């Protein structure tokens, strides 16, 4: 059986263009899309951003969105990118799965009306599409993709890359033949201010890998690709653009927001991707770096690149000076940029680079007329969620004889649940003090304490110190932290906000903390879906897919969620449902038999 993953369509919208042709044009002309904000109303006029050059109204009109239909910017951008990808690929959306990466979800809409939503019902409908999982459903609904055919990945800035990895694993294990995978993220005051509290935003255009770099610029956009099995491509006579020949997902397990000095997670992710593609480092023709322009990322990524490539360093560039850092969407936006580079035969410039940083890599200046056979694309996120993809020219594999691989889709996979914990609002809280000191727990909200206690006790019961993978899900994520941050921002304005609250507001906070705690550098992912059973099923399916491929023997699987008094009240008013206030934390350790 041919296990090749073909890419048969791609769509993109970002600050440098509303489609592939415009994007390519901007990259070749070295025209950045970073500048003053026009659509997002922020007090931070000093912070340049990579904004999509269309208002919500213009996007709605372009997509023919019915008037009165609630939709957030993240979904609007995503829909446009999916539309382009489907058009190029020619597949029918009803037959496909949609795996989308986002962290902002509907926050851009919620933050405009949050104080009103707390008080009255005028804008309460926004709650239904606030969470990341529901944002994916908005996109699926537009195309008639069945509800059960969606999954949302939220690993902060590597979300879209991990969406591609999940999609590819679904195809490899026979769960799907066609997957639309990528990510979407709109700018929001929430994360603009959040990154600002971390003091990692540059007031000038970002300069990745430059000695004078001062930080990143945020961007927004969406990109999706159509991943397809070889059987499906052949059956329908599809036209492959490229092959997703390798990918790696690893965890830095170092710090919630900072990368380790030696770039361990990044190194392991790149190594896994290369090994899977069956390539030696010297065969990579171009690396699209994560390259955010922060002091920390660029020095850590340089260290990791040097460890992988040594003397064989290929041309490396970051395209974030063009698009800004599109956070959850960056993995797919940059994958599509790599596809364009491969098709057109050019290396995008590392715009604005002038000064060699000590111990840093020397980025590429940009080149045309070059053949790119294999490209690597890096995406690293908060929580140490590091992923790397390798895409290869389709021609090189299509004519190659099928490599006989044992089909991992067939046969019974026997697993055993070694331990299981479930804490609910009614049950006694787990005792985190058994595992952590007061200094270590000082930043943890109730949800984190319960989730950590449930997980660490499940591991202890299973007599496991370091699981092969950490696979968790949530519905509303770190609600206490994000609600506090949002409330303060809406009431007091865009100043004096807490970096700790923002740092621990991303959905992958708990998976990242667990990895640090257990020193687990293995596969690490966070899914979101409004429904607990559904998201747990996705997590278990993910563990099973990795076990079938022989990538892991065991996994810590979990679900955590929190209902605050404010959410309880809004759910009651919107749906008439009385959900208990409090924390739910599920943790189970699964082992392959």
């Amino acid at each position, binding site marked *: 059986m041919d296990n090749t993953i073909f890419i048969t369509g791609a769509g993109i919208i970002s600050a440098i263009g509303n489609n592939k042709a415009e994007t390519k044009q901007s990259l070749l002309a070295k025209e950045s899309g970073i500048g003053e904000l026009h659509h997002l109303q922020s007090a931070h006029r000093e912070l340049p951003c990579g904004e999509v050059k269309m208002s919500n109204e213009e996007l709605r009109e372009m997509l023919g969105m019915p008037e009165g239909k609630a939709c957030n910017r993240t979904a609007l951008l995503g829909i446009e990118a999916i539309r382009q990808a489907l058009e190029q690929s020619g597949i029918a959306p009803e037959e496909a799965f949609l795996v989308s990466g986002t962290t902002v979800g509907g926050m851009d809409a919620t933050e405009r009306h949050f104080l009103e939503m707390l008080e009255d019902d005028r804008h309460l409908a926004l709650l239904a599409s606030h969470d990341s999982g529901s944002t994916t459903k908005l996109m699926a609904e537009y195309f008639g993709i069945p509800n059960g055919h969606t999954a949302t990945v939220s690993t902060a800035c590597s979300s879209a890359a991990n969406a591609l990895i999940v999609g590819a694993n679904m195809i490899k294990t026979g769960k799907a033949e066609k997957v639309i995978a990528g990510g979407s993220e709109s700018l929001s005051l929430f994360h603009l201010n959040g990154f600002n509290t971390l003091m990692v935003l540059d007031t000038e255009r970002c300069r990745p890998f430059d000695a004078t770099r001062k930080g990143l610029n945020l961007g927004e956009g969406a990109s999706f690709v159509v991943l397809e099995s070889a059987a499906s491509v052949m059956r329908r006579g599809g036209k492959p653009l490229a092959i997703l020949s390798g990918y790696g997902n690893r965890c830095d397990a170092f710090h919630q927001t*900072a990368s380790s000095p030696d770039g361990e997670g990044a190194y392991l992710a790149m190594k896994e991707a290369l090994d899977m593609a069956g390539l030696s480092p010297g065969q990579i023709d171009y690396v699209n770096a994560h390259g955010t322009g922060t002091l920390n990322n660029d020095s850590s990524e340089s260290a990791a690149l040097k460890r992988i490539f040594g003397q064989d360093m290929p041309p490396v560039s970051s395209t974030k000076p063009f698009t800004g850092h599109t956070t959850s969407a960056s993995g797919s936006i940059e994958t599509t940029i790599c596809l364009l580079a491969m098709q057109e035969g050019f290396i995008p410039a590392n715009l604005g680079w002038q000064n060699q940083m000590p111990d840093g890599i020397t980025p590429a200046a940009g080149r045309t007329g070059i053949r790119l056979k294999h490209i690597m694309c890096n995406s690293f996120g908060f929580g140490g969620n590091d992923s790397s993809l390798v895409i290869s020219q389709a021609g090189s594999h299509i004519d190659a004889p099928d490599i006989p691989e044992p089909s991992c889709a067939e046969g019974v996979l026997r697993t055993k649940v070694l331990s299981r914990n479930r804490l609910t609002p009614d049950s006694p809280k787990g005792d985190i003090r058994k595992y952590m000191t*007061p*200094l270590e*727990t*000082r*930043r943890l909200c109730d949800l984190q304490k319960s989730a950590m206690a449930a997980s660490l006790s499940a591991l202890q019961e299973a007599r496991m110190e370091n699981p092969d993978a950490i696979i968790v899900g949530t519905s509303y994520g770190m609600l206490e932290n994000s609600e506090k941050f949002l409330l303060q921002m809406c009431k007091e304005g865009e100043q004096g*906000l*807490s*970096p700790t609250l923002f740092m621990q507001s991303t959905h992958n906070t708990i998976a990242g903390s667990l990895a640090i705690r257990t020193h687990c550098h293995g596969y690490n992912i966070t899914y979101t879906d409004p429904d607990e059973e559904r998201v747990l099923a996705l997590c278990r399916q993910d563990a099973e897919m990795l076990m079938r491929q022989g990538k892991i023997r065991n996994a810590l699987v979990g679900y955590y969620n929190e209902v605050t008094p404010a959410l309880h009240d809004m759910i009651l008013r919107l749906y008439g449902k009385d959900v208990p206030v409090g924390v739910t934390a599920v943790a189970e350790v699964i082992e392959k038999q």
Partner: protein
Amino acid sequence: MEELEKQLKQQIIEVLNLEDMSPEDIEGDAPLFGDGLGLDSIDALELIVLLEKHYGIKLSDPSEGKAIFKSIHTMAGYVAAHRTK
């Protein structure tokens, strides 16, 4: 200065959520970071917010914090010299 130091200690305990600690537990010249109180880079960012909120001092470069937040003494000295409120 003594009054300011005491106030800073209380604010630090509150902002950084240092449960089980009282102002008397923090020595005026003991290092706040690393081996002393054990604070880290995220705490430093919180202290920068504290300076802005309570004393009207705005730091634009996080690396400036290193010298200022060495101990309660250095922090109080900096606040006394630069406060705008």
